[in-house]
């Protein structure tokens, strides 16, 4: 039954390709942001600020000297923002009321806000340097020191890659099983199987296990990629990771089997599976969009998604370690889901055709 090469391709090759593709492709880091620096005066201060931008790894400034030129660059999205240092800057700094204009492109609001924050940081750093050099400028009075717990490199791969593993596992689990089981229905092999002493649970298991194995192989490859290609640290233990993944995979397989037992048409089974597992895993599991900021109604929906719990577990295992306080409750929910699916599946996969 595992002689079917397309299943192996789907189960093993596909996850690897996906993880590579998306691991490299998706990144929310804001670095090397192209900005237009409109220097309307070329004083020492202005050039100093410009140098600060140029040296920063966060920015790639293009120097222009008029607002019109800067705006042209912004409209064509050659740059994502404009920083304007007006012509009377130095004089106003001494007077204590200088202003720097920052314009960001609102199309990518997320990025825009972060760009604003960076600019503030860059200007703030310049101001502090001025104070250190003795110029009468004051910062504060409240000064903020920021620290990032767990991911000091501020690398978005850290949270994206575990999330991608979730997606990949979802795919393998649900889609593959749904496809295979539905195909068997249509091929009619089930009919002959049923009229044998084999019990319905045995049939279920017999179909599940090969795909389970494939899923684990796919997972291992993904974890390897995560560690060695994307430098995502694995602070927790590998066993816990495998255990959590096995749990999720079983739930995914359960869903796939359920859908295909209930819907004996391949076309509808695949569509349903994709709708019910992949899109929610992508949008509503918390890997990309923070769950706490969603309206209550949507958040309720997310409680039904196994992906949500798996994401929480993976992000913790990779980036924080074996925190049982987080892992145990999430695992418990997944176990409960597995139990429900198992019972439900058993009751509808009796050996009947209609």
């Amino acid at each position: 039954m595992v002689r079917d090469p397309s299943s192996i391709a789907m189960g093993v090759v596909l996850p690897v390709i996906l993880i590579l593709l998306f691991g490299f492709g998706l990144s929310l880091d804001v670095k090397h942001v192209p900005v237009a620096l409109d220097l309307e005066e070329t004083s020492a201060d202005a050039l100093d600020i410009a140098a600060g931008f140029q040296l920063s790894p966060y920015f790639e400034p293009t120097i222009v000297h008029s607002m019109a030129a800067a705006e042209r660059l912004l409209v064509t999205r050659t740059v994502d923002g404009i920083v304007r240092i007006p012509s009377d800057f130095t004089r106003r700094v001494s007077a204590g009321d200088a202003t720097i204009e920052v314009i960001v492109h609102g199309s990518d609001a997320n990025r825009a806000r972060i760009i604003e924050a960076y600019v503030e940081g860059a200007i703030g750093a310049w101001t502090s340097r001025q104070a250190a050099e003795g110029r009468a400028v004051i910062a504060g009075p409240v000064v903020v020191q920021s620290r990032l717990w767990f991911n000091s490199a501020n690398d978005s791969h850290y949270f994206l890659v575990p999330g991608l593993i979730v997606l990949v596992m979802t795919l393998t689990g649900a889609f593959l099983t749904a496809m295979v089981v539905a195909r068997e229905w249509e091929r009619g092999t089930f009919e002959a199987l049923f009229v044998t002493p084999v019990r319905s649970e045995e049939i279920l298991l017999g179909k599940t296990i090969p795909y389970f194995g494939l899923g684990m192989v796919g997972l291992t490859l993904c974890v390897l990629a995560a560690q060695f290609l994307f430098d995502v640290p694995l602070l927790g233990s590998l066993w816990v990771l495998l255990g959590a993944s096995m749990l999720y995979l079983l739930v995914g397989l359960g869903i796939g089997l359920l859908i295909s037992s209930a819907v004996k048409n391949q076309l509808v089974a695949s569509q349903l599976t994709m709708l019910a597992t992949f899109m929610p895993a992508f949008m509503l599991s918390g890997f990309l969009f923070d769950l706490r900021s969603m309206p209550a109604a949507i958040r309720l929906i997310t409680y039904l998604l196994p992906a949500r719990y798996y994401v929480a577990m993976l992000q913790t295992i990779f980036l924080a370690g074996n925190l049982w306080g987080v892992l145990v409750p999430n695992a418990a929910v997944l176990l409960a889901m597995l139990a429900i699916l198992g019972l439900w599946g058993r009751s509808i996969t009796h050996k009947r055709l209609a």
Partner: protein
Amino acid sequence: MLGSLLRIVALTRKELLAVLKDRRARMSLLLPPMIQTLIFGYAATYDLNHVPYAVLDQDDSGASRALIARFDGTGIFDRVADLHREADIGAFIDARRAILVLQVERNFERQLDYGAAANVQLIADGRNSNTAGTAMGYANAVIEAFNADWRATHDLPNPPVSIDERAWYNPNLETRWDMIPGMIGTLTLIQTLLLTAMSVAREREQGTFDQLLVTPFRPAEIMAGKALPAMLIGLTQATGVLLVAQLWFHIPFAGSFVTLYAGMTCFVLASVGIGLMVSAVSYTMQQAMLFSFLMIMPFAMLSGLTTPLRNMPLALQYFTLVNPLRYAVDIAQRVYLEGTSFAQLFPDIWPLALIAGVTLSGAAWMFRNRLQ
């Protein structure tokens, strides 16, 4: 020529009848994109409107309490705990009970009274660097406001440099505003691609495809007869999403509808072309589903909708050049939010036209060699 057109019309009519006759089929074509827009429209936001945070106030003074009150007063920050020991911070964040911890140092008020720098620490949960960055940005803004007030009431000079920030097109920088127009393209792509890819496979499985080939229909006509209805349905779905964006989410529309539809038409044409190529090589509906799905996934995720194109390695950025969704997202966002004109959209339109041209002729060629 006329004969050809009439035949295409007959095919289109037949296809629309076959697809839309069943009430359930109609619903399943029109409703899911709209429902998905609703759900994902709410979910797909990088904005944080609920940041649980904890405080370790080591000063417990009037000033520190005032600062904390500011945080509480934003309506975004939700104080979930008051910690008492530094050692607790780590455990608290580990347990994901707060995104952020605000630590006020012991001599906070005294430093402020002396006019010296008073320190606070912001510790954020870095497991999601994006959320952390956003939360810190908000926190910094609150602290800046506190600073400005303090300087004003205590007659301190302002820092010499202030920053005047503005955002073009999306003044409140709501990420929802750029997600939803982008979804017009994404949701339409999914349905259109699936529909077209399966249309031929369905006829093959039912046996009617042979019948089509036996009649005087030319392969190009058969393709046009599949492409047109899919385009009509695709544009209808896009309209559905647009309506949700306008009427439910109230995102203001800055451009011209004509331009948007012109752009979307090019996009749908390209999607249909890809769908037809998939259907030319699929013999069963299962294969068609599989191939479509395999294409939709990378297209959707690497379209620039959720993560910026600029961040991708160069090789992948080249890949996105053949991703029609990339252009659709750009077109939708720019027309919707910026009011871009058709001429300015040209850099997005011509690749779509190219993709459409290549895929449609490729599919036609494959249809002609319909054997194997």
